[in-house]
């Protein structure tokens, strides 16, 4: 299975000279469609850098990042923006919904930014919201939604349209454990439906929803293993 997202010896150095910091060192990895990869590691290890490079929000100092076969380094800022509109969905710890847009408008945002008509955008947004169980909340503003609901809206936005790469940075960090599990289940479902997923998390229970777990330390991928299935973990908890 070829990777929808691939990193080929990607290095990212911030700053110059003595003040430079290497956030990622020669990282190589691949995430295929239908696959969910968890990234774990201590703070400052380079997890978020991995995610921002994957989403085209940052450029590698060396190496190649490809999404759907496209080398992100070859793209202009507008080209990268197009990749984010059409191929990549982001979910953050802090929900990050635009407070002046309704839930449906937040979800439809990438589509509308891509020039899709209002009616079609709304229809697709409603579909995405329905998939996360929030179709009744479509007209509400983020301030009127609970944390869990906001994160589900963010996931709906991350997968709306034909986007097939879902990047999540601590998506459950601001949620209680039950809501966190619901969110992870949702991400898992989206990947099962054909998306490629990469989730940064500190929590092994949430990493267990992934097919594989990458461990990063000091900018290097130090280990990669298949995660223990979450139902096994949950069963262990029950015992």
């Amino acid at each position, binding site marked *: 299975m070829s990777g929808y997202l691939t990193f080929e010896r990607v290095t990212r150095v911030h700053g110059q000279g003595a003040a430079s910091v290497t956030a990622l060192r020669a990282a190589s990895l691949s995430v295929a469609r239908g696959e969910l990869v968890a990234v774990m590691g201590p703070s400052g290890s380079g997890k978020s850098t991995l995610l921002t490079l994957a989403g085209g929000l940052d450029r590698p100092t060396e190496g190649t990042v490809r999404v759907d076969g496209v080398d992100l380094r070859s793209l202009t800022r*507008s080209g990268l*923006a197009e990749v984010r509109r059409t191929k990549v969905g982001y979910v953050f710890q802090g929900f*990050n919904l*635009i407070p002046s847009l309704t839930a449906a408008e937040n979800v439809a945002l*990438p589509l509308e*930014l891509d*020039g899709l008509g209002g009616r079609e955008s709304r229809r697709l947004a409603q579909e995405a919201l329905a998939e996360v169980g929030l179709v009744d909340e479509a007209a509400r503003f983020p301030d009127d939604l609970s944390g869990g609901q906001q994160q589900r809206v963010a996931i709906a936005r991350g997968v709306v349209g034909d986007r097939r790469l879902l990047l999540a940075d601590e998506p459950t960090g601001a949620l209680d454990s039950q809501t966190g599990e619901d969110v992870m289940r949702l991400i898992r479902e989206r990947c099962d439906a054909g998306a490629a997923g990469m989730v940064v998390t500190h929590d092994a229970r949430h990493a267990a929803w992934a097919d594989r777990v990458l461990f990063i330390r000091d900018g290097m991928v130090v280990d990669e293993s298949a995660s223990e299935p979450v139902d096994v973990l949950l069963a262990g908890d029950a015992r």
Partner: protein
Amino acid sequence: MTSWRSLRPSARVARRELRRGWRRSLLAVLLIALPVFVVATASVLLRTLEVTPAEAPERWMGAADAVIRAESGAFQVEQGIDPDQSASWSSKPGLKPVEPADLRRALGRDVPLVELSRGGVDVEFTDGATYADVLALDTRDRLTAGLVRVERGRLPRAAGEVLINAGLADRGIGLGDPLTVRSASGERSMVRVVGVGSPHGSQASRMMVGLPQTLPIPSGSSRSWLVGGGDVTWDDVRALNKIGVFALSRAVLADPGDAPDSIPGSGGGDNPVMVAVVGMIVAMVLLEVVLLAGPAFAVAARRQERTTALMMVCGATPRQARWVVLAMAGLLGVIAAGLGVGLGVAVGWASVDFAARTASESAGPLDLRWLELGGVALFALLSAFLAAAVPAWAASRRDPVAVLGGRRGEPQPRSGRPIIGLALLGFGAVGAIGGAQEPGGDATVGISAVPLAIGMLLVVPALLGVIGRAAGWLPFPLRFAARDALRNRARTVPAVGAVAITVMGIVALGVGNASDAAQERATSLPVMDPDAAVVSLYDMGGGAANRDDTWRRIQEAVDAEIGAGVAREVTTVPSKRRLRFDVPVRRNESSMLVYGNEVVVADRVPGSVWLAKVADREAADRVLASGGVVLFSASRSEHTEAVARARGTVQPAGEGQAKPGAVTLGAAPAYVARAGLDAPAAAIVSPALAARWSLPTEVRALEIPVALSGEREQRLTDRLYLISNDVSVMVDYSQDPITPGMVQLILGAGGGVLMLAGTLIATLLALSEARPDLATLESVGASPGVRRSVAASYALVVGGVGALLGALIGLIPGVAISFPLTSTTWLGEERPPGLPDHFLEIPWLLIGALVVALPLITAALVWATTRNRVSLATRLD
């Protein structure tokens, strides 16, 4: 390329964010709408008050079909629709004057004509007499209907009836009052006032309208007629032009057809220098508005940085991110344009009647020039977009990852900007210096202010950087404010720039004005003591007995008005005697030719004579006591300080230098004092010298050592004019008009308001943004007063840095413009002795007030009005 449809989310976010931050939005709208409102109101008022012949033809031609004017000797006449606006002609003396028969022949039909004659008469009323302009026309003729506006009473219907204007009515003349009019030939006739009003558009201060037989006026070089008998077509107008006559036709006004508005070469086009100056003023106002509104947009963009970053994460292009701020600017610009133009039209319309009453003129129909108003609205939109341009650009350059991670993510300003700024400053300075060196270079200096202003703006970020980095030794509040200004350059730079531009303009104008005033002081001197008046009777013929009687009546009239014994008699040499005084000076000999009645005979300088210094008066009195003569010169002459000897000569009739037949009177000690031209005395001869030279003397002037009010002066003048029109009343108002100090005060006050606005806006926005920092300060134990001190320091940094920079740069065009304004070597004449090449005066008090006092006052104001308590920080958006 991003499609317009893809910009909808940006516009939607902008719209909703505007509602969320409505106070900030309101601030930006008000800043942009205010100049729009002022200009729109002025446009509506001026256009409505400015009545054109097409709007109200009756004001020009009554009920006639045309009004025509024949100028003496005019031929090859060409005109546009309105000959007063556009016409050209040639002139040849001795051409046969146009008569009514010529007009009828040119028109090819027998048309009724009513002649309009203009002239002047002396009007005698109960308490005095005065001169008045006269319009003589047959107001009984229906063609004249509507030409004269009647406020009270009616139009004259018979010989001996007149209508007077408000200027004459103010003399206490009422309806039914009898008046005596005295024609230029001296004939007197009685008339009766039947109405008060004036011809439309008349600017005469005193005016009278009557039938031709009431007010006979000799034919002058220009004659006008009202024409009836049907439409006067453009072909008729051209036929009239052929006989040297100009015509304004009602039919052509209503339907111009092929008639041109203007004809080539008739002048009246836009003066390119004026266009450039107006363009520069508009550009500077635009810049000022942009800079004042800029900080509001910078803060709005900052408040939305998270939203913008999120949009970028969702795939927004930089253009779409910019559009969040630009759409906001567009919306605010549209609101400001609508509000400004709407309110301007409403207020202009509501004040038309008041303005018309103030101008003593009736207004025309409401005249909305949509092109002008559209231009003003466009100004609002343009201001908003320009004010938002930099914040929008900065928003699109922010690193979304950094912003979402809680860091600033603000791009570093390009290091090339200070260099471009310095280059523009150099370019502007060179332009200003070039303008200073060319005659009439004031426009060049004015235009060079634009690169100077832009260059100054471009160096502001670098200057803030220097100040912020050097702030380590400053007390905490100032250090905090300086560093915050550096850190938030997007918001601080426009505010500092607005203050700097304001101060730059004021300093440049202030230096120009002060230098101009310095030249005025050196070259134009008062002629009299402002608290005195002089009454003189000129000898314009008539017998000595008559003059004695006239003079006696004048003295009685002055005593009656001022009080007996107040006025002092002044002895003069009879006015027919022409004296010449030659005074040796360092290089050559200066000659002064004076007329007898300008020569006062006195043993002391009369109190009414203005002298520059007390020392002048003392020296002059000493010369008079020693039997000498005091002469006056307007220039700072080389012999001003020296007591010299003058050689007196009695001149024969004729102008100019000494001629054969001149009788030398001899030499005498002389003192030349400085005084203005047209002083009541050009020379003061001591009685001893007058006796030695056998000069005849008479008393034909009175010195009134009392300050006369305008009303009292007019009453006295009217009284004396009733006695003789050879009498003059001199009062010197030259020291009354707006003084340089007053101009500086007005400049300082206007600049102060703008500075205060710019500084307060920036300070309030900075405080609003600094809330989390201030909360942090409080949490680590800062005293409650620290918020106030920080706020005052913000004001001090913004106001002080802006004012200092503006003052320094403003000196460049200010000093430069003083050269073309005041140079004494460009007048085409030899520079008067003692005068410098040009005058330069720096208004240090004004500059000190702007650079030191105003920032301190602003800081104090901010300190006094800032709350001490700091609320806990909340999320930014």
